[in-house]
């Protein structure tokens, strides 16, 4: 391995692969909405381009087809055999599931949404920008093949927005797999159904019938080319604005018809939706801190009307290049694996297939990330977080400009108003986030009741944490752009050696530890390392020789900026390790773990032993736990009523040590811990 590193990284990362690919132009679809009648828009002639092999059918017929399908019938018969229940009763159950799940696409509802959303979007957002070339590509592929939309998921707005865009461009409205937590919202629920959403229970592990009905429903829609299918690879809304690690279940369902050659091909369309400001921003922060999520009830949504008076900036939607599953699969999976069993009997997917699905899921997310429009706010947030509680305005402007350069050279897709001065850009960002940041007397501060360390209470810690997490969520929009070079930089600090092999070893460790936090393509550590090295060399932060990586004096500040940007993660995980090592002598449940960490961290914060507010985040805690389980640092034990965990002290300490083996500035912290 080491030899490979030296050889490959020595040659440098291929320039071509990273030279910022040309991105499409955007078009603001609200512009026309400002100029012409929304009613007319909603009532326009809507004749979307359709799949050439479409066999038209009504939503009701669709349900019957699914119910009568060999797949579902087979499972019904099997269940009846297993449980002794009559198959009629199970059949009825299946019908109920279909009713609960089934969408009922209606043009009327779509028009209603088109009208209402026009109004709402105009109130909330300045612009809704769409890359029209992406739409053109989509228009073509929709007619040729079954299509699956894979948008990023940051907000409930996502799927309303996408359907709205489809309507605007005269494209078929997708059928959406979305969480059943909407079912509580009576009115909205009905409308959503009619606009194409169908519902999936969050957890249906072990419910064979549900799985069968659901899978068949999705596949039937694809096979018939009835409508594009849309779902979120991330599984749920990311509360942190960081891309969540992908889920594989739905992805393998939508690819299944191709694997079984029931369709010639299926196209996946990664879609990146980025918001200058996310509607749910504060809600997410509370959730991350463990305040129970308010159940989405209709009245809750109505209260959200308050929100309507605020400004949420722009939305950018980038439709990526549609990707052919057939092309992706070519040569990678054993093509005859479905030959020996009837296709309606579901088989455990083979290993190569599982690997494939996993790989594709990650690739799709990486494309989402690559095409995600970044805004100045993310840069401001990233800088401000390194200068809490606040900083000089002019310095902020200067640094933002500097970070802009860095972001661009790392391949970030930045939406930077060309006609404005940097100062103006920062200022308008501050205005947009005025609930979070404030400019007073040439000084920018994060709002949220910052108090001097001595007088901290848990309550104040909590208050401040809300602001920090909100701010962090904007910084998080850019972390995946920086993560590779940053991990190389951090590795070179931690390795306390300039030997490439040593640094690579640490890099692998960090990449492994943080693979739940950031998106890395499985099995491509070396490539990630090379990319990181290449980017650092490109901006002259390091020099790479055949065997060494040396941080150049001149750009030392960049390296430390990068490593500080990721400090909340390195430090957060370290703290969690400490907690496991000190406090967790016995087996514990996930709940005990979170609340334990939470207490532990807030104590540290109260006493000023750390500034790592992000360690309070449930998201980080959960990621850390599952990482530790994956690495064998913590054992997960299945009990009758759930799981318990048990930490391997030695391994925990080792991990903590590795994470803590830093240069002097960090040693201070460790001694204080």
């Amino acid at each position, binding site marked *: 391995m080491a030899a490979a590193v030296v050889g490959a990284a020595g040659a440098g990362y291929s320039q071509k692969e990273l030279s910022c690919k040309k991105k499409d132009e955007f078009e603001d679809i609200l512009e026309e909405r400002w100029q012409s009648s929304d009613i007319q828009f909603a009532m326009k002639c809507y004749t979307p381009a359709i799949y050439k092999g479409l066999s038209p059918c009504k939503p009701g017929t669709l349900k019957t087809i699914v119910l009568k399908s060999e797949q579902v019938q087979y499972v019904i018969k099997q269940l009846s055999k297993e449980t002794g229940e009559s198959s009629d009763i199970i059949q009825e159950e299946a019908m109920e599931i279909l009713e609960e799940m089934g969408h009922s696409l209606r043009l009327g509802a779509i028009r209603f949404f088109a009208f209402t959303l026009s109004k709402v979007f105009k109130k909330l957002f300045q612009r809704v920008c769409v890359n029209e070339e992406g739409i053109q590509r989509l228009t073509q592929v929709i007619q040729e093949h079954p299509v699956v939309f894979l948008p990023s998921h940051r907000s409930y707005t996502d799927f309303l927005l996408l359907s709205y865009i489809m309507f605007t461009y005269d494209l078929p409205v997708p059928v959406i797999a979305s969480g059943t937590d909407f079912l509580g919202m009576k009115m909205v629920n009905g409308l959503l159904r009619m606009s194409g959403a169908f519902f999936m229970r969050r957890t249906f592990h072990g419910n064979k019938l549900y799985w069968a009905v659901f899978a068949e429903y999705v596949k039937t829609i694809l096979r018939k080319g009835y409508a594009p299918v849309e779902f979120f690879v991330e599984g749920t809304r990311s509360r942190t604005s960081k891309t969540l690690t992908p889920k594989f279940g739905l992805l393998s369902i939508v690819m299944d018809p191709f694997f079984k*050659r*029931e369709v*010639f091909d299926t196209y996946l369309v990664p879609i990146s939706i980025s918001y200058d400001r996310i509607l749910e921003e504060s809600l997410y922060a509370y959730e991350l801190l463990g305040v129970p999520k308010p159940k989405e009830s209709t009245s809750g949504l109505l209260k959200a009307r308050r929100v309507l008076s605020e400004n949420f900036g722009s939305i950018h939607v980038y439709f990526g290049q549609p990707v052919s599953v057939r092309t992706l699969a070519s040569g990678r999976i054993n*093509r*005859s694996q479905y030959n020996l069993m*009837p*296709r309606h009997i579901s088989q455990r997917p083979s290993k190569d297939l599982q690997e494939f699905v996993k790989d594709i899921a990650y690739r799709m997310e990486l494309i989402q990330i690559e095409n995600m429009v970044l805004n100045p706010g993310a840069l401001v947030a990233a800088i401000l977080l390194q200068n809490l509680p606040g900083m000089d305005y002019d310095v902020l402007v200067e640094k933002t400009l500097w970070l802009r350069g860095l972001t661009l050279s790392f391949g970030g897709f930045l939406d930077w108003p060309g006609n404005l001065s940097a100062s103006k850009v920062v200022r308008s960002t501050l205005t947009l986030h005025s609930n979070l940041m404030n400019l007073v007397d040439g000084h920018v501060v994060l709002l949220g009741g910052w108090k001097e360390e001595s007088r901290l209470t848990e309550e104040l810690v909590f208050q401040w944490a809300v602001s920090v997490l909100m701010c962090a969520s904007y910084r998080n929009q850019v972390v995946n752009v920086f993560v590779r070079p940053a991990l190389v930089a951090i590795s070179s600090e931690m390795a306390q050696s300039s030997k490439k092999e040593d640094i690579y070893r640490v890099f692998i460790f960090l990449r492994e530890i943080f693979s739940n936090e950031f998106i890395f393509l499985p099995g491509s550590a070396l490539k990630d390392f090379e990319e990181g090295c290449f980017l650092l060399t490109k901006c002259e932060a390091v020099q790479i020789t055949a065997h060494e990586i040396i941080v150049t004096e001149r750009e030392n500040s960049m390296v430390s900026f990068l490593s500080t940007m990721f400090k909340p993660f390195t430090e957060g995980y370290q703290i969690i390790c400490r907690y496991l090592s000190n406090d967790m002598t016995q087996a514990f449940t996930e709940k005990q773990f979170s609340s334990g960490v939470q207490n532990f961290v807030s104590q540290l914060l109260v006493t000023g032993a750390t500034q790592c507010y992000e360690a309070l985040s449930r998201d980080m805690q959960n990621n850390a736990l599952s990482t530790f389980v994956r690495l064998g640092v913590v054992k997960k034990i299945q009990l009758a009523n759930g799981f318990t965990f048990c930490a391997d002290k030695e391994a925990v300490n080792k991990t903590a040590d590795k994470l803590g083996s830093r240069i002097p500035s960090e040693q201070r912290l460790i001694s204080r811990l």
Partner: protein
Amino acid sequence: MASGTSSQLAQRRLRIISGHVQPPQTPEALSLHPCRAPTAAGSIPKRRQEVLKWNGWGYNDSKFIFNKKGQAEFTGKRYQLGGMVLPALREWMEKTFGASLEHRTTSQASLNVVPPAIINEGFLHDLKASGISYSFDTEDRVFRAHGHCLNEIFALREGLFRRIPDLVVWPNCHDDTLKIVELACKHNVCIIPFGGGTSVCNALECPEDEKRTIVSLDTSQMNRILWIDEKNLTAHIEAGIIGQDLERQLGESGYCTGHEPDSMEFSTVGGWVATRASGMKKNIYGNIEDLVVHIKMVTPCGVIEKSCLSPRMSTGPDIHHFILGSEGTLGVVTEVTIKIRPVPEYQKYGSVVFPNFEQGVACLREVAKQRCAPASIRLMDNAQFQFGHALKPQVSSIFISFLDSLKKFYITKFKGFDANQLCVATLLFEGDREKVLQHEKQVYDIAAKFGGLAAGEDNGQRGYMLTFVIAYLRDLGMEYYVIGESFETSVPWDRVLDLCRNVKERITRECKEKGVQFPPFTTCRVAQTYDTGACVYFYFAFNYRGLSDSVHVYEQIEFAAREEILANGGSLSHHHGVGKLRKQWLRESISDVGIGMLRSVKNYVDPNNIFGNRNLL
């Protein structure tokens, strides 16, 4: 059209196929010493070049041409289509392939540049002494250097062969064959059995790096029916007899085998056995493996055969199945005892039009399920249906095109049918008159359930005709930059539609990717039905103007199509065989152990690889 009596019908069908009725043969059937008995004068002479094209399909006198007026015409008198003008064909070619009469390619006049013969003097000496007929003539050698794959015909027309047989021998009988094989073993020369030369899997192609003398063992002179057993309904025949001669000669005694592969004008009994051939009427008569009762094969380690003519045996694995499909790698099949049936009293063609291919397949599936398939039932897709129109002759009372004769139905019955969707099933019923009529009704009733409407006998008959002329059509295409081929597979019922759609789509896409300028012509038919699945037959052709290496492109696309078939749960081959064309997939098709079994049989039977055509393994 009124149907005649069955013997008339049988005759007529033969005429349709070849129209080439020979004067009745003197029966040699009962000669006790077949070697000394004069061989029957078969339809194809020893010097094949006298009647057959050297660089294309079929008889010299039969081909498609464009006449002075630029209209397509079929020459010769052998086929019903002979001498007729086909006005729609040109436009079809222009439209379908973007072909043009201006852009022609011409075949070289002859293939004289051949590798020099490698002669094993010892073998030649002993061969001469044996008195067995042989030849070094270049034409004779070239004629036996190939089958009818596209690359082979292309090489004849504008290329060359790197390796051809060095010598052709014509054994007169089993004993001659024994002698030849014995000499071959003695002198270590390579033998490639040659039957009718209709192989479509490069099975006859000589391995380029074969350094030994390659002897093409032409079986054509072993072409007698040795006896007919009317009590047990079997006939014992020599393996070199070609299909048309066999059926005609049996017909003279009131019998038939019923084995009618589309190549039956030229292919031989030995070839059928060696490739596991399948005949059009297998629903009644069975495929070749169902038909043979006894096989005699000469191998390097002796003769293999069973000791009785029993209808079925439980004596371990059936040794016939080592022979069937051995593709000339183990030995020469010299004699075969085959089932015969009385010539059916009555034959009737038929056809059904379906609104679309899906419905048609569903109907065939149901027919198979009820096990009431007629002698033949084939479903052509829409493209093939349209192609039928292109072969409409100018003046003929019988040859009204599909479309024309459908037109009158069209207005009345087919209103709901889309001319770009509908497809046709062709049917052939056989048996005694009453049963045929009953059977016919049963099938049409099933068809009706799938929206199928009876569309007359003529259409059915013409459908079968198409199969024979299509082989000639390729030669015409090649004159105008159009190359093509057929290929086939078998697949479980539930995957038929997916397979057909995906394979066609794959071809279209591959062509585009490979820079083929005009969309290719792809069409398929469900050619055979079984209890559990069907045989699907594809035609595929494209205009190669603008491509630098057309045959290579063609091969890449054919490769992709086969990959697609395998990915769709189709078999490597239903009846064309493996040869060298599909060798690369055999291992995955039959597993490592399977290959090992075949290899160990080969190693035992032919350790020195005398039968060195290198098919299969």
